[in-house]
């Protein structure tokens, strides 16, 4: 079986190596990816269209807003599916698993984490809010924020983390992120534009059309950040305890 599987694998490898002859060289400025009108349009017009200095954020939130919305929905659905799969596992009745031990949280670890978590969370907000002018955005900020809760769960136990961020609230926050994203899109649709065409928000807010896009991208990123935060933590909480939400790692 293992030797047999080498045949297709090596075949694919030979084909890919052979195909790499046609790929552009490392850092070639005239490579098809860099030369395409799409990429030049993004680089040339982002500043005019959205006033966002970070092109990645502008492309993510505005030019490819539809794609990003459904990526967020995929994250949301994955989190909900994990909840649904592990919720009715029959492990719930049996109390502790064999390898679980009762251990007091270590005082050095907990105090270090007590100091670290606020810094991590502020950094998460910074990454989220500064995504317009520096590398960052909703996905990165959301993951950082979720990691801070996971750190609490690792250093104390899961109950401590769940007391601060219950799973029910996780679901609500994740849904709220999607609704915020879709709501901004729908609002711009009701104001006369197309779905996720944020420029129409200038009709109700006292900003220019470009700055309306700027602020709408921020709103969209916050929605993404909420969803990712909640789903990251609920993924950890469910997977580490096989859905029982007790004990855990």
């Amino acid at each position, binding site marked *: *079986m*293992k030797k047999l*599987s*080498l045949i*297709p*694998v090596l075949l*694919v*490898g030979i084909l*890919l*190596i*052979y195909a*790499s*002859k046609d*790929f552009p*060289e*490392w850092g*070639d*400025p005239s*490579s098809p*990816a860099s030369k395409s009108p*799409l*990429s*030049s349009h*993004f*680089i*040339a*017009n982002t*500043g*005019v269209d959205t006033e966002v*200095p970070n*092109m*990645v954020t502008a*492309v*993510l939130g505005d030019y490819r807003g539809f794609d*990003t919305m459904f*990526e967020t929905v*995929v994250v949301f659905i*994955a*989190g909900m*599916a*994990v909840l649904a*799969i592990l919720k009715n*596992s*029959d*492990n719930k009745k*049996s109390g502790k*698993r*064999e390898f679980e031990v009762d251990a007091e949280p270590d005082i050095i670890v907990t105090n270090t984490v007590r100091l670290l978590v606020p810094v991590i969370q502020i950094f998460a907000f910074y990454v989220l809010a500064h995504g317009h*002018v520096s*590398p960052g955005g909703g*996905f990165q900020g*959301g*993951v950082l924020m979720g990691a801070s809760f996971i750190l609490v769960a690792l250093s104390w136990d899961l109950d401590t983390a769940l007391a601060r961020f219950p799973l029910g609230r996780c679901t609500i926050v994740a849904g709220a992120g999607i609704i915020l994203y879709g709501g901004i899109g729908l609002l711009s649709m009701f104001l006369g534009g197309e779905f996720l065409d944020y420029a129409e928000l200038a009709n109700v807010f006292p900003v220019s059309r*470009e700055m309306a896009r700027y602020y709408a991208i921020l709103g969209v990123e916050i929605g993404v950040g909420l969803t*990712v935060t909640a789903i*990251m933590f609920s*993924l950890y909480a*469910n*997977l580490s305890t*096989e859905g029982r939400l007790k004990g855990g790692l």
Partner: protein
Amino acid sequence: MFEGGGIINELFIERLNYLIYVVLLLIGLHAMIAKNNLIKKLIGMSIFQTAIILFYVSVGVKEGATIPIYLPEHDPHGSHASHSDGNETEQSNHGPVVLDAELVKGYSNPLPHVLMLTAIVVGVATLGLALALCLRIYQGYGTIEEDEILAKIEKQEMRSNPSDVLKSADSSKQATSRSAKSVSKPKVSSPRSSKRSKASPKTKAKATSPTTKAKTSGTKPVSPKRKAAASKSTTTGSKKSPAKPKTAASKSTTKAKPKPRAKPKAKPTARAKAKSTAKKATASKPKPRTPKK
């Protein structure tokens, strides 16, 4: 294939990024195909994903270009620096402008970064979903080895609808002869398996109620398959030592107790007990077999 600089030179120096991506991709692909353990398959999938991410990012590299964030002179809000002058006309000069082609060359392509940014986070979420499925499979079947799961599913299907088996009894008879050959193949354990083949029909007859002949004939094709699986596990067991106690457990349960087979939804404690009994059974191997003869 590669003229001029020679294949090695071309591949290892000028196109090293493609070589690395191909190697990573192949490692992932091979793990996904060849590994039996579901978690190892997932690790392979993650490596595969990493290869794709590396490919996209390496394609997005542009010589002499900076990151796709506007430098202060092109920044639409770069005029803030000169805001202190209070000169309105100068500020408008610094306002957002469409960059011309020369300036566009100074920024790398933002599109691959955007695509991979979302792919990473979505990859984490889908990996979590896959791990949850693995957990559930482990709770249901007590194993995450693919071949063991398939064997258990086959057994379950045979037990749950014997009428279907009866319909395909003719074809399964052929299958029995075929599987009998496959049993006799590993010659090291052939005497044992022949013993088992003698013993197992008896246990089968005990297990199923003798009044329903259809059932007994239906369950007949089960035994060779189980045997085949058992013999396989004995042959592979010598290679993989951790797999041994489990397979031994399934063997001993099917041997020692004629009627109750391990329920699919076995609790971990029950499983642990089965393991411990299996260890005992392996210590005194011939014992449980002799009364069955």
